[in-house]
């Protein structure tokens, strides 16, 4: 297991049952540095489930997920440091302000407060940096959560419907982030119900079969 | 105050502050039977706030909202019976199945179980009627909540981002509902960040100024 600079994520014959029902099976996929995977599929096709599996937050599956050639379970602590996971709901502390919330994530990647503020500003939250998050609107909370992307160093991003509640204007800066990450040689796996066609991002697509 | 068969919703010089910041002011709007109002605006422009005001769930505003010509505050119990409100998150009981959840709303409008099942079926949840809602995916939960529209008799619908987490296929039946409601002579007020242009619905638009 050589720690190669060029990250790669490989999904091999992944299979997952929920309850009695088969969710997906035989999912194969190889992502190399600088690639973005759009996991598409109808409601209930298993996108969230897949992302949680990739993030190591769900273990009831068969098949294997390889990161830089090694199974993520064996190298979990190492792998965990490489991933940024953003779930259906933004992981924010309602009592803390947008800035304070980001500071915690920033410390994990030692980022300066200036960077945080510029990130928030880029997402149009300049006037909202200092009010507690529970007073932010749905979309503003999303934006705050997405601000992490602006200064994240993680090699692998796992984003579950990042654009929910985001208005038309809000797309541009986020797309910009995604492009940067790709150019930087990172990997992105994301789901979204906003058609990828009208946001020009180079991407692979993995379509999960409709749930019965 | 004559109970006219043709409902009408009138917003007069509505004004709302949140904290120090002025959210919107001088909002005027008149909706007659069979009209759909799309409340648009950036994140944080006050759409949710407006809808909650119309639903009588928030009272810190000045100006007045008239239903059939009378202020909604004076005739609250009467008005409440006419409205259906669907907030940012679907009001479902995680422990109960989709059918059981709907049965409660149905009883409120004495609907038969057949209608419930056909409603769920129309939204592609035939196979999911009998598993507890917490096991449904984000989109499936949305759909379950939206199934209420299928048998709702309410004159006024207030829908906050009904299409969140709904996949491309899911739009058609919901749009169908909205059309029916309009033809039926009902009124709809909704917010959404999915552009209205590509869903052909006759609608007025009310744009709230961007939050500073």
């Amino acid at each position, binding site marked *: 297991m050589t720690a190669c600079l060029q990250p790669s994520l490989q999904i091999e014959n992944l299979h997952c049952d929920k309850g*009695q029902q088969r969710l997906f099976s035989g999912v194969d996929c190889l992502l190399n540095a600088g690639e973005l995977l759009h996991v598409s599929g109808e409601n209930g096709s298993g996108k969230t489930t897949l992302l949680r599996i990739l993030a190591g937050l769900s273990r*009831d599956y068969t098949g294997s997920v390889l990161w830089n050639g090694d199974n993520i379970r064996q190298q979990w602590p190492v792998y965990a440091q490489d991933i940024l996971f953003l779930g259906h709901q933004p992981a924010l502390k309602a009592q803390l302000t947008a800035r304070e919330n980001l500071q915690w994530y920033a410390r994990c990647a030692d980022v300066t407060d200036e960077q945080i503020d510029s990130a928030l500003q880029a997402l149009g939250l300049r006037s909202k940096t200092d009010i507690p998050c529970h007073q932010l609107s749905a979309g503003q909370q999303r934006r705050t959560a997405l601000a992490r992307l602006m200064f994240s160093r993680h090699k692998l991003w796992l984003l579950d419907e990042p654009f929910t509640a985001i208005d038309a204007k809000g797309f541009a800066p986020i797309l910009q982030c995604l492009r940067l990450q790709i150019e930087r040689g990172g990997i992105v796996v994301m789901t979204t119900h906003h058609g990828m066609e009208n946001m020009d991002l180079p991407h692979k697509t993995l379509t999960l079969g409709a749930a019965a | 105050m004559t109970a006219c068969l043709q409902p009408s919703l009138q917003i007069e010089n509505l004004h709302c502050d949140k904290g120090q910041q002025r959210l919107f002011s001088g909002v005027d709007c008149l909706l007659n039977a069979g009209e759909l109002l799309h409340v648009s605006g950036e994140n944080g422009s006050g759409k949710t706030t407006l809808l909650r005001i119309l639903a009588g769930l928030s009272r810190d505003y000045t100006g007045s909202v008239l239903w059939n010509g009378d202020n909604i505050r004076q005739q609250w119990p009467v008005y409440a019976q006419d409205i259906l409100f669907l907030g940012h998150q679907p009001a479902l009981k995680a*422990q109960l199945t989709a059918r059981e959840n709907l049965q409660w709303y149905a009883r409120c409008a004495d609907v038969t179980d057949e209608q419930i099942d056909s409603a769920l079926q129309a939204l592609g949840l035939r196979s999911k009627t009998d598993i*507890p809602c*917490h*096991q449904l995916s984000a989109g499936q939960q949305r759909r379950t909540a939206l199934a209420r529209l299928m048998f709702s008799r309410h004159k006024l619908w207030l829908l906050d981002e009904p299409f969140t987490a709904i996949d491309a296929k899911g739009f058609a039946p919901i749009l169908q509902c909205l059309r029916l409601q309009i033809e039926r002579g009902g009124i709809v007020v909704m917010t959404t960040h999915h552009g209205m242009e590509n869903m052909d619905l006759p609608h007025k638009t009310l744009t709230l100024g961007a939050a500073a």
Partner: protein
Amino acid sequence: MLENKYNVFSILKTWFHRWGSPPWFYQMSGKLLPWLSVLTAILIVTGTVWGLAFAPEDARQGNSFRIIYLHVPVSFLALAGYYLMALAGCIGLIWRMKLAFWTLRAAAPIGAALTFLALVTGSIWGKPTWGTWWEWDARITSMLILFFLYLGVMALANAYQNSDSGNRAASVLAIVGMVNIPIIYKSVDWWNTLHQGASLKLTSAPTIHGTMLYPLLIMIAGFYLLYAVLLLLNLRCDILANERNSRWLQDLLREKR
């Protein structure tokens, strides 16, 4: 040498996996059960008849002491049952073995019931001997706490909608409980000796003579078997419930018809 060791290990492993596989276990236990239950019946019947009818009356307690033939076996098993349960939890967590988890689930209610029975028989016994239904004696109190531990495991296991998580959570709790039981028992004993004066000691119980002892031993053996039978029955139900639409079970049912 190494070779040999490896063999032993591999044999163990295969044995382990066999027992881990629901189909195999289901069929084996199916074959085993009849014999077990017959043996259990024999032991318990003889023990009971001997103990109640033929064993001599106790000098001090008269006939009331005969409840010991129910009370003591039940009490032993109540405690042993918890350790078995925790052990199953351990195995389940380490090897991710479904069967072990189901064993835990099956053992919990039985153990709780036995503990309750120990408490009931004990207090029934207490009435004639101590003149009260309840006595804050060390062992009795520990028994009560053991009952709480069982309750906790059961409540937690059933609280989760996702049964796998429920199993794991319950296992963790059972293990924590097992680590704590010695501490709890020791501290309760110590506490009780603090309050000596207040409560009678259980050692005022009859010193058991051989003629009384043999039926007791038989009863204890019988109850261990009874426990095994109950556990197997309960476990088989769980297997049926959890594997209801797995292929081997369908096939089995088809054969049966």
